[in-house]
């Protein structure tokens, strides 16, 4: 053995994956994780199932709305519902979420209306919600730029004394989400450095959906991504991202460790982006249909349904009701968006600064005058007629 070490078990690709629910719905017992899930009732599990169905329905509708010209773009989370609903429910209400742009399931679990998400994709606002109120950061488009925000927020929590007091109802953690491709951005690594250095209460959560647009994860890392954070001494785990229970359990452990003052954690949730990168993308150019089918067989929703059916926790009436509710949600989105007025262009001058700003005021006034010209002209012409 060489003095040069990797501490990565050989062969390098060998990283265990935590899984509680097999694709066929079988539940594997797990010493460490089972106690974390012990409090869950059948009702809770059905709730997760419903969540995933609902968000998938919203997602499919959003894609349709984009095709109808109602949205400028849509980034589908199809296939990632398990990873997202799992981590969403792993959190406690006081936690702060820092998402990417594909976190619709997480948002749902945090109580953000899908309609609110659509604002950004429709192009009427850059962010439809109040981050303070919903304890959820704006969707982030600059890849990785959100991760230092998450760490900074966690540093604020430390300064507020809201960590390590032992009270899980008030001790607070931050969840920083980013994609497998984004793991390569320097700002993500710097966030690991700060989080480790300050032992900030933050959990990094990567949905490794195998692709960054057309680039496979193997281009970002030749070893399992879960291992990345260990170079900073940040404990990490690879979890089956299509297993909502495993994601919930490891997420809960990580967030509770963070809130307890034990420092950051990193989770790699292995999943798959079943749809195109966005509605602008054409995945047939870069990935084989067979791969998509392979992953379709590991679907997070079907998996939970099979599991619940095996334990008689679910029946057709319930799944049908969920499907119908999903359909209703889709219809609601459809109607809402069609009824949605375009913003007044003058709004573009608002909220550039929190305090008065002479240049913005000047440009706004000039623009008003400019618009007034047309109104005058229109009136003049009416006068002529």
């Amino acid at each position, binding site marked *: 053995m060489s003095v040069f070490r990797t501490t990565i078990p050989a062969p390098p690709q060998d990283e265990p994956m935590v899984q509680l629910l097999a694709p066929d719905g079988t539940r594997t017992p797990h010493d460490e994780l089972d106690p974390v899930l012990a409090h869950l009732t059948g009702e809770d599990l059905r709730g997760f199932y419903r969540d995933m169905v609902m968000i998938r329905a919203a997602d499919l509708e959003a894609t349709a709305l984009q095709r109808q010209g109602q949205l400028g773009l849509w980034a589908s989370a199809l296939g990632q519902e398990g990873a997202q609903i799992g981590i969403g429910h792993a959190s406690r209400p006081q936690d702060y979420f820092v998402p990417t742009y594909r976190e619709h399931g997480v948002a749902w679990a945090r109580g953000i209306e899908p309609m609110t998400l659509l604002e950004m994709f*429709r*192009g009427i606002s850059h962010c439809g919600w109040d981050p303070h109120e919903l304890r959820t950061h704006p969707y982030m*488009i600059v890849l990785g730029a959100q991760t230092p925000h998450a760490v900074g927020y966690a540093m604020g929590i430390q300064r507020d004394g809201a960590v390590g007091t032992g009270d899980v109802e008030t001790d607070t953690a931050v969840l920083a989400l980013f994609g497998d491709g984004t793991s*390569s951005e320097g700002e993500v690594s710097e966030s690991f450095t700060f989080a480790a250095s300050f032992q900030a209460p933050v959990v990094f959560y990567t949905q490794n959906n195998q692709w960054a647009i057309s680039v496979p994860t193997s281009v970002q890392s030749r070893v399992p991504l879960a291992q990345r954070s260990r170079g900073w001494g940040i404990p990490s785990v690879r979890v089956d991202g299509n297993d909502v229970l495993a994601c919930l359990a490891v997420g809960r452990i990580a967030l509770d460790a963070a809130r307890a003052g034990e420092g950051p954690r990193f989770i790699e949730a292995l999943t798959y982006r079943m749809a195109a990168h966005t509605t602008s993308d054409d995945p047939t150019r870069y990935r084989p249909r067979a791969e998509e089918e392979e992953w379709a067989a590991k679907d997070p929703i079907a998996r939970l349904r099979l599991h619940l059916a095996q334990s008689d926790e679910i029946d057709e009436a319930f799944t049908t009701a969920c499907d119908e509710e999903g359909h209703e949600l889709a219809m609601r989105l459809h109607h809402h968006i069609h009824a949605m007025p*375009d913003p007044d262009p003058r709004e*573009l001058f608002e909220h550039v600064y929190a305090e008065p700003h002479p*240049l913005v005021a000047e440009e706004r006034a000039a623009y008003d005058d400019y618009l007034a010209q047309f109104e005058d002209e229109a009136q003049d012409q009416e006068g002529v007629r």
Partner: protein
Amino acid sequence: MSTMQLPIARAITQGLRDALRADDHVLLMGEDIGVLGGVFRVTDGLQAEFGAQRVVDTPLAEAAIVGTAVGLCFRGYRPVVEIQFDGFVFPAFNQITTQVAKMHYRTGGRVNMPLVIRIPHGGGIGAVEHHSESPEALFAHTAGLRVVAPSTAQDAYWMTRQAIESEDPIIMLEPKRRYWMKGDVDTERRPELGLHDAAIAREGTDATLLAWGPSVPLALEAAATAAEDGTELEVIDLRSISPLDIDTITASVQRTGRLVIVHEAPVFGGIGGEIAARVTESCFYSLEAPVLRVGGFHTPYPPARMEEAYLPDLDRVLDAVDRVLDA
């Protein structure tokens, strides 16, 4: 025979292809440029033709994309890197500003940086945040960089070629919303215009309209409209933002006495200010009205459903023309 009708995007593709053919040391790097051919398909087919060593799908990290390109220059290569969208050039800003721009100077002229950074730029495509930026002023201020912005298919082809042939680093801003605008391209006859020459896109006598990249078609449209009312506008397609072809500009302004500058970037601190200041200095006695600028507002780029109001349009350009003529 060598002339064909091509959209701007395809003209760039052809420019890249011919450059890759002409010189083994040219290579392309960027996110999704290989198998996918780029999100705008500008590099479509090139990896298949030239292989993955010359058309490289990189990991997702802009600073390293530009930074490794710098290292490749040291090893004698001529990298052409693609930044996927204008808004994503900022992670690479340190490399561009402190390394790419300064390396030739730092090394006392011993090392060249024949590096091209291609950036699809500008708005008007109904995109989400960060996909519609016009950061030219942020590069032009930095000595050591050259900044160009083609607006026609012919220029897209040849400026790509010239940029790659240049021994200096070039930021090439591609007019993303005009990517599918077609034009004649002659890939054989080298144009007379150098990479940094401005072009008179339309001759006129009453005032000069100056624009670059995506705003040039707008300026031409404005000139056509004004002509219907008997106003003859001269349109300058700037082509090069740094260096400026100040001679062509001042010659025109000396003829017309009036100048309106149009660009998508915010007016405040934009390159229009530099041009206005320079033109005023050299044409102080021939200017019959102050130079006017039409551009983006001092706001972040707005959500897509407000971008029409944000971007210069025909009415705003003609309004400025009226004002400059009335003065």
